[in-house]
């Protein structure tokens, strides 16, 4: 009954409006919606994925109060520009007391199972990239006063970003946003994450029939997320006391923050007020986009921070090979030659090779990422060979998928799966049914 349904959308997608919003999600059928099956793993609530107006959306059914809260949290995460899925709609079905929360499905992203299942078995380095991304995401959230409350591998999506992975918060049902988090909130969230990550890894290991001997190692790796988190948190939040004469120390600290991808938003050196002559250094950092901003300013390219790090290194090494006249990039304010150097790199290196790399990976994923993969593969294979193998050999390796086992480029194999996501195999569907039937409501 239309009158008992409240619709709120933040996108203008005519097809989305035509979905059967007055029906319980369970009753949506092929006659009313083009639904895709995604092996998303267990979820507290029913989630379905309609394909509408050329895009995939996630629709989750949950009690109205919880849905309203999650919608509000996701909106705030968006305002804070944090890596989280974007809420695009909330439909309240007053009669049932339920609501349907609509989010945009994150393109080119994967759930951890999909990612790890596609990669060579038991390679700690791949897991480490995943877990680094989790720790980094949690630090980002905590810096912005966000208590996640249920950080797990299953509630996270991963996308590629150069040689790293970017983690995205997917489920904010238990999340809260505060002006600032207490230490207790942070530590509790971290404990939850470590426990959930260990659980997720063990579950996957059992599912894949990995030998039980690796369980202890997986638990160790999950515990390592906390170490990663603390290291990053400490760097970002330390407030050292410096003598006035040691102001140069500040520079080193800022460089370290920049290397980690953080630009300094504000820096203050203030007396402690306790009669001590030393000054307390406080550094507020902006979002983790230091290299991305630098690359954008130089080239106009908009890419992820991890990709920007790779591209900038490539740009700098290219410039180093140019004759002095064109090395304005390194020499200072000679804007013409600097611009010229950048342009030459774009025209002669990046664009043609990016095209070839993208071709080599079968036009999967993002072309910039394909170029990052090419650079990594060339580097690693050259190291193995003891000499530069050149682009052609590296492109061939990319095309043949004869990639170094632990390379970030290996993740390209997960991209291939993405094309198949709308058409799962029978086994995948069975596994999905088993999983969701088993844990459809895991909260009590």
């Amino acid at each position, binding site marked *: 009954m239309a009158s008992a349904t409240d619709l709120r959308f933040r996108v203008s997608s005519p097809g989305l409006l035509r979905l059967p919003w007055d029906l319980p999600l369970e009753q949506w059928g092929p006659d009313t919606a083009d639904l895709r099956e995604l092996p998303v793993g267990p979820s507290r609530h029913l989630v379905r994925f309609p394909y509408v107006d050329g895009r995939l959306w996630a629709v989750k059914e949950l009690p109205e109060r919880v849905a309203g809260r999650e919608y509000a949290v996701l909106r705030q995460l968006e305002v804070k520009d944090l890596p989280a899925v974007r809420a695009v709609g909330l439909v309240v079905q007053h009669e049932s007391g339920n609501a349907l929360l609509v989010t945009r499905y994150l393109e080119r992203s994967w759930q951890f199972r999909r990612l790890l299942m596609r990669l060579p078995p038991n390679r700690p380095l791949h897991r480490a990239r995943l877990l680094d991304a989790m720790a980094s995401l949690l630090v980002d959230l905590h810096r912005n006063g966000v208590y996640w409350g249920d950080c797990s591998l299953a509630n996270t999506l991963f996308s590629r970003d150069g040689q790293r992975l970017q983690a995205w918060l997917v489920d904010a049902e238990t999340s809260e946003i505060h002006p600032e988090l207490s230490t207790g909130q942070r530590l*509790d969230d971290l404990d939850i994450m470590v426990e959930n990550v260990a659980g997720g890894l063990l*579950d996957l290991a059992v599912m894949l029939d990995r030998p039980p001997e690796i369980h202890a190692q997986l638990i160790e790796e999950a515990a390592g997320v906390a170490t990663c988190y603390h290291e990053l948190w400490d760097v970002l939040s330390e407030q050292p006391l410096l003598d006035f004469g040691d102001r140069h120390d500040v520079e080193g600290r800022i460089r370290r923050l920049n290397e980690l991808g953080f630009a300094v938003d504000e820096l203050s050196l203030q007396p402690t007020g306790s009669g001590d002559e030393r000054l307390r250094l406080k550094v507020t950092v902006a979002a983790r986009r230091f290299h991305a901003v630098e690359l954008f300013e130089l080239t106009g390219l908009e890419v992820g921070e991890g990709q920007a790090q790779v591209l900038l290194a490539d740009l700098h090494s290219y410039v180093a090979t140019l004759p002095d006249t064109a090395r304005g990039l390194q020499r200072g304010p000679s804007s013409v030659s600097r611009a010229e150097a950048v342009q030459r790199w774009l025209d002669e290196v990046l664009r043609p090779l990016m095209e070839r790399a993208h071709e080599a990976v079968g036009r999967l994923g993002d072309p910039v990422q394909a170029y990052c993969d090419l650079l990594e593969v060339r580097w690693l294979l050259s190291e193995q060979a003891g000499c530069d193998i050149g682009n052609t050999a590296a492109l061939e390796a990319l095309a043949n998928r004869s990639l170094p086992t632990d390379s970030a480029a290996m993740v390209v194999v997960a991209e291939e799966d993405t094309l198949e996501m709308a058409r799962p195999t029978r086994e995948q569907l069975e596994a999905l049914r088993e999983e969701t039937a088993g844990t459809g409501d895991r909260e009590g």
Partner: protein
Amino acid sequence: MAAIEMKNIIKTYDDGFPAVNDVSLDIADGEFMILVGPSGCGKSTLLRMIVGLEDITSGDMIIGGKRVNDKAPRERNLSMVFQNYALYPHLTVYENIAFPLRLAKMDDQEVERRVQEASDVLELHEHLDRKPANLSGGQRQRVAMGRAIVRQAEAFLFDEPLSNLDAKLRGQMRTEISRLQRRLGITTVYVTHDQTEAMTLGDRVAVLRKGLLQQVASPRELYEQPVNLFVAGFIGSPPMNFLPATVNGSTLETPFGEVTLDDEKARAVAGKDLVLMGVRPEYFEDASLVEDSKRNLGSTFTARVDVTEWLGDSQYAYIPFDAPKEVEDQLKELSRELDSDQLRTQAIVSIDSTSRIREGRDAEFWIDTRKVHCFDPASGDNLTRDAEAGAKLTREAGEDREADLAANAERDGHPTSAQGAGTAPAGGSTRV
């Protein structure tokens, strides 16, 4: 398992807003304590201070005899049940329960002992080798509880755990939580805004309002001897009716006619010009159905019925009344504060389901005046509260709880830590 003591707990935010204001509360070892109140009353903040999620501005939080103000959540060894847990689809029920112990690298023998013990309590024995997919919804919830049990936490904490569930599972889980708490005899603090949960689960209920503790007592004491207008209005559904009443010696002049008070109540309202007379819906009746022997224990009046609601086993009649503006404003304010759209200037009265009272007609009603309370309209205080009778109710609830725990311990063949130790403060209701 441990007692939880809160001494003058204050939580003030940076903007100076006191979310919790000087709360002192003792929760006995093994006791099931409910924190209840409308949104913004501070109940969740208080729970989070127990857990360690919120810093305590001042006061002492003591768990198991140790001050924990500066301890991290994990060091407090409390278990937030259902807050966030996942059942892992490929792990057996056994491993799903054992999981936190594996993380703690506990030896297999101890893991085995604890999982078996938990599955005894939860009646999950025959399911231990299964996968979660093969369990019913309720069984899956029990697996999650199993995970909390094997941790051997000092206390279980619940923060509105049932609010995300559908009505059927909610009812099931309420029973399950109650049974489990009794069986384990574990100290439990449970936050809810749902008074059905508050009244059915708790040994004692702490009612909070704007960060201040109003009353801590057994559900029955709260219901029968509330300390003030707020508690009286919050506890009970449909809520207590409040009628403006002019005091004239031992007689109250109400919109429904004169009501005569007994001597004790008359003494309590002496000196007041106006009071609010509180009458629960079930203390009214269709006068034609009241036996003569009972009739003179109350007052009768005639009023026009606006609406009746027949629910099969029960029936309600709605009777509008006029109130002076000051009273009307106060009732509106109370209603707003309680997130209620009731408590307006109409009485909700419960009448026998066989009553033939009809809408739009005058009917004769009876009020059991022995059960009315009179509240000071300015302060909201209950002028006619019988503290002794209230304390007795809470004392009895405490005795029942101890008897339950002892019976469970005997059945399980081992004494629970709560046995003998779990005595609620003997004074019954605490008024703060």
